[in-house]
């Protein structure tokens, strides 16, 4: 999505000051779906209790966190969810939720509205029940999720559809697009399938080969409309939109992403990571204060010190501008936070080819003998911007 000047300025300031203004907290790994691509184990290994989470929220508010994303697992499996939401609102957080919505009824939608939850992101894998339900492994789940979306919309809440794409639903993105249009909600396609958090790589077999993503990369309808609502005004008050992902901000020009700079992830067990996709343990809130971990953890400082211009392989890559390398996935899949993330190399070659670059080969593939770049594209169209997100 487009950046906005107000958000861009705020992102720059929070990155410069290392202000943890966007924090993702998983309240549980338990879930009432069994999605085939899920990276979690669905067990409760000792989740933080209500008071522990409240304490964490207080610390985050004191540290300057504004954007709070509560996710899981399925957050509505926590009996104390509304107590936690009420507490979070008393601390003036901007609250977004990620849920499969199976447990949202009219009454719960009304309560979410009353608590001024800003946005609810819901995963939908296809508009066809057979495809969606086969991925969630819960019969009737699409119908229940769509019913819940209508309850949320009836309350005027902002819903966003997330559609992770895997082999089982690659071309379903078109009917998800149509569904989103019918519902009048934004959507995001997510081409990221990650290893399990315990390092199990078996889920990667669900991932579409990069070449199979060409129809998506070439689909001109995937150019998202600008969400910029900026009306640059004179002081004392300037206005922008909070819907920007912010990732386009110039503040991120030489750093890989926001992880550890102005955002982080907290697990149901109190562990703090730079990002949900970056398995670099930096501390545990059951033993340490948040600010101690955020500002003093050597691991957090190591992540924070990474500069793209100093990456041993990627800094030399001629098609870097087409690359969306994820340092966390580079660590997870390649074992090196500073290394190339080959999936990103594959996609960058495709995108560069679509943009007209002749024989695009990433630095990683160029240095590997007998490895060719992926791209051999007969007819090219303008490169659309497919936004990647997390599920």
């Amino acid at each position: 999505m487009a950046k906005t000047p107000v958000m861009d300025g705020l992102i720059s300031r929070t990155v410069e000051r290392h202000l943890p203004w966007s924090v993702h907290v998983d309240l549980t790994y338990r879930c009432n779906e069994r999605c085939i691509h899920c990276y979690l184990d669905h067990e409760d290994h000792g989740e933080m209790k209500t008071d522990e989470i409240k304490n964490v929220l207080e610390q985050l508010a004191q540290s300057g966190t504004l954007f709070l994303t509560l996710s899981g697992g399925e957050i509505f499996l926590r009996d104390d969810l509304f107590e936690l939401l009420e507490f979070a609102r008393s601390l003036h957080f901007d609250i977004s939720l990620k849920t499969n919505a199976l447990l949202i009824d009219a009454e719960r939608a009304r309560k979410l509205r009353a608590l001024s939850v800003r946005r609810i992101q819901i995963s939908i894998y296809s508009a066809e029940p057979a495809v969606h339900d086969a991925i969630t492994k819960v019969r009737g789940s699409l119908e229940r999720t769509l019913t819940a979306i209508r309850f949320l919309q009836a309350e005027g809440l902002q819903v966003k559809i997330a559609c992770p794409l895997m082999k089982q639903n690659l071309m379903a993105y078109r009917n998800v697009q149509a569904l989103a249009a019918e519902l009048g909600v934004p959507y995001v396609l997510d081409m990221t399938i990650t290893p399990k958090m315990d390092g199990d790589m078996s889920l990667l077999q669900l991932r579409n080969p990069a070449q199979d993503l060409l129809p998506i990369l070439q689909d001109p309808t995937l150019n998202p409309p600008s969400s910029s609502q900026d009306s640059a005004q004179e002081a004392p008050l300037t206005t922008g939109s909070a819907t920007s992902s912010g990732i386009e901000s110039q503040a991120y020009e030489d750093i890989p992403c926001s992880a550890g700079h102005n955002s982080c992830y907290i697990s149901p067990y109190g562990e703090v990571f730079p990002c949900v996709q970056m398995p670099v343990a930096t501390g545990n809130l059951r033993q340490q204060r948040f600010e101690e971990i955020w500002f003093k953890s050597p691991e957090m400082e190591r992540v924070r010190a990474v500069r793209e211009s100093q990456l041993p392989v990627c800094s030399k890559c001629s098609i870097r501008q087409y690359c969306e390398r994820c340092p966390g996935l580079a660590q997870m899949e390649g074992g090196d936070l500073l290394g190339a993330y080959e999936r990103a190399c594959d996609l960058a070659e495709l995108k560069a080819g679509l943009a007209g670059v002749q024989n695009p080969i990433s630095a990683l593939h160029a240095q590997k003998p007998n490895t060719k770049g992926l791209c051999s594209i007969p007819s090219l169209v303008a490169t659309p911007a497919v936004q990647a997100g997390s599920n």
Partner: protein
Amino acid sequence: MKGYIVRNPKLAWREVDGEMVIISPEDSQVHELNETASLIWKHADGRSLEEIAERISTEYEVSLEAARADIGELVTTLEQKQLVFVATEVKG
């Protein structure tokens, strides 16, 4: 200067470098207040506008009349954006 000022309870907000950043959950609009508007926001907890004018007059070493004028203008802007409400009396 008559009236009492309260924040819109639906809003999310945090102070960044002494300035308030406010988000409306209904339309995802982000508002950034300058130092003076931020001061008004911080005190918008049911206090009277006169009390806030006195505070700003002292803090910024300006006359009470000048503070009242500034506040009147700023509060009108904040009210138009539905960031604050001005009441003739404090409830509860």
